């Protein structure tokens, strides 16, 4: 994974391309996610408006909260569920073809995942921003959006790596859905999917800071609120550190899986 030749880059780009082609044929899921965007942003913008109308004090601008939610949902929904594909490849035994090819299984799966991201992210991003604008009649400054986008891409890449790691657990587990379900719930809570972590009790904020979830959702999405609380360089550093930890976890799991295959058969 460390020393990649031009040939390796071309191989992984080919995996990304074929995933894009596959995504273009499976548009149903993308349309479903787009509809979900309209519904969830519609519901939450109404909720924040209703809260404002009751006179209850909320420690955030309701319009900024809708854009925050659009940002977290954009990141979350742009990441394809590659763990399901990997699980099926392992279950059906098709993985034997992949393991025999002169390409890294881990990198190929990651590249395919990023290919799907390349198709989804622009479409869902346009949808997210259009919905957020439609429901709030307000936009953050363009410079803020421009700063947010590369961080969002990096956060989605981390989510893809997380799904890749979950998928590789299928070398041991019949069904990785419980692991995915658990990480999703942790992501919702510690990632601050619906509400910024700054609105959480202090002990929850401290617990969340020990997990990788805030750098995937809360911190990049907080850029959209324009409070100036997020320092881009710190966020970049955290993404690199958590990204390195995730890469190490994925590689370690893969090596353990291969060792298990040769010891226990399969």
């Amino acid at each position, binding site marked *: 994974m460390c020393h990649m030749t031009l*040939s390796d880059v*071309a*191989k992984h*780009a*080919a*995996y990304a*391309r*074929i995933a894009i*082609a*596959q995504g273009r*044929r*499976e548009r149903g899921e993308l349309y479903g996610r787009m509809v979900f965007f309209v519904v969830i942003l519609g519901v939450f913008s109404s909720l924040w408006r209703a809260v404002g109308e009751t006179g209850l004090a909320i420690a955030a601008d309701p319009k900024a909260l809708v854009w925050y939610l659009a940002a977290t949902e954009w990141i979350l929904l742009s990441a394809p569920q590659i763990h399901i594909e990997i699980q099926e490849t392992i279950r*059906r*035994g*098709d993985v*034997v*073809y*992949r*393991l*025999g*090819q*002169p*390409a890294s299984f881990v990198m190929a799966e990651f590249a395919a995942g990023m290919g799907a991201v390349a198709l989804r992210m622009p479409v869902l991003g346009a949808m997210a921003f259009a919905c957020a604008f439609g429901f709030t009649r307000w936009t953050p400054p363009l410079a803020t959006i421009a700063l947010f986008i590369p961080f969002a891409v990096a956060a989605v890449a981390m989510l893809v790596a997380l799904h890749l790691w979950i998928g590789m657990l299928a070398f041991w587990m019949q069904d990785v859905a419980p692991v995915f379900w658990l990480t999703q719930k942790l992501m919702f809570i510690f990632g601050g999917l619906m509400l910024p972590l700054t609105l959480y009790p202090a002990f929850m904020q401290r617990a969340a800071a020990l997990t990788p979830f805030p750098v995937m959702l809360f911190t990049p999405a907080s850029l959209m609120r324009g409070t100036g609380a997020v320092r881009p360089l710190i966020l970049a550093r955290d993404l690199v550190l958590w990204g390195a930890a995730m890469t190490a976890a994925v590689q370690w799991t893969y090596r353990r899986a291969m060792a298990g*295959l*040769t*010891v*226990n*058969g399969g």
Partner: protein
Amino acid sequence: MQPAVELRELCKSFRVRRPRAGGLGRRLSSLFAPRTEAVPAVDRLSFSIAAGERVAFIGPNGAGKSTTLKLLAGILQPDAGEVRVLGFVPSRQRTELAFQIGTVFGQRSQLWYQLPPRDTFDLLGRVYDIERREHARRIETLTSVFALGSLMNTPVRHLSLGERMRCEIAASLLHSPRMLFLDEPTIGLDVSAKAAIRELLLAESEREGRTLLLTSHDTGDMESVCERVIVIHQGRLLWDDSIGALRKSFLTAKRVTFWSEAERLELMLPGVRVVASGTHRTELEIASDVTPLGQVVDAALRQSSIKDMVIEDAPLDEVIRALYAHAERGCVT
């Protein structure tokens, strides 16, 4: 000349969990410290295959065929012994070897299900570093040889199993491998699709001088495609010779069907058994090492005039069954 495949005293065993007998405490302790046992999958297996040979590699379920194929492809590492495939040591040179071999697994797929085969072929072109013009030339050749035509642009999910299998084999040949491993390539196919796949494999191998190692439970595959058969049982070599030699050694039985003037033939000869009979028709199984065929025909002619007669070898399936039965009794070395 260096053999295409060389195995010497190859061993591979797997650790299998064995549940602890006893109460709840013992079963709970199995969760944290499971008791495992080494089960040999391949046991001191030795053979070699010359370049260009077409070899059937057979054995009953659990004999170690798939494990051997995975060892040959470098997917698994051997516990002991030596393996060389086309001069490479698979466990250490898996990537280099991958460029030289192709694999076809009948019950698996390398084609992207929602996409036409052409997309997978383009991906494989990149994965195997095939130069663009050469890639186009190979696709053209394989499309013509395997009659892929319009299939190339049809999503895989719309292809029949036979059509998909043709595409799978063509995909495995895209990088012109010097050796092809085939694991049950005709499983689940109908009679005509099987025949088509066998013809293609034979013709392609003869034309390119490609070495084939084919595992199958279908004796038709080995008879149609291969010239030599290696049989393994419980991970050990049971038989390694031509298919003809296998028949001769393990098949002393012949099937003879008589159509006679008499309604029924009653031949009371040692080693002769009536398999089926009807009016004027008698089908016999003859142990020719007990009673020679000539004696049976003479005896039949003494009972009635014979209108017609067919002599057949027993099907290869029965030969293989006899071989496995001998192995179970520990008679084969």
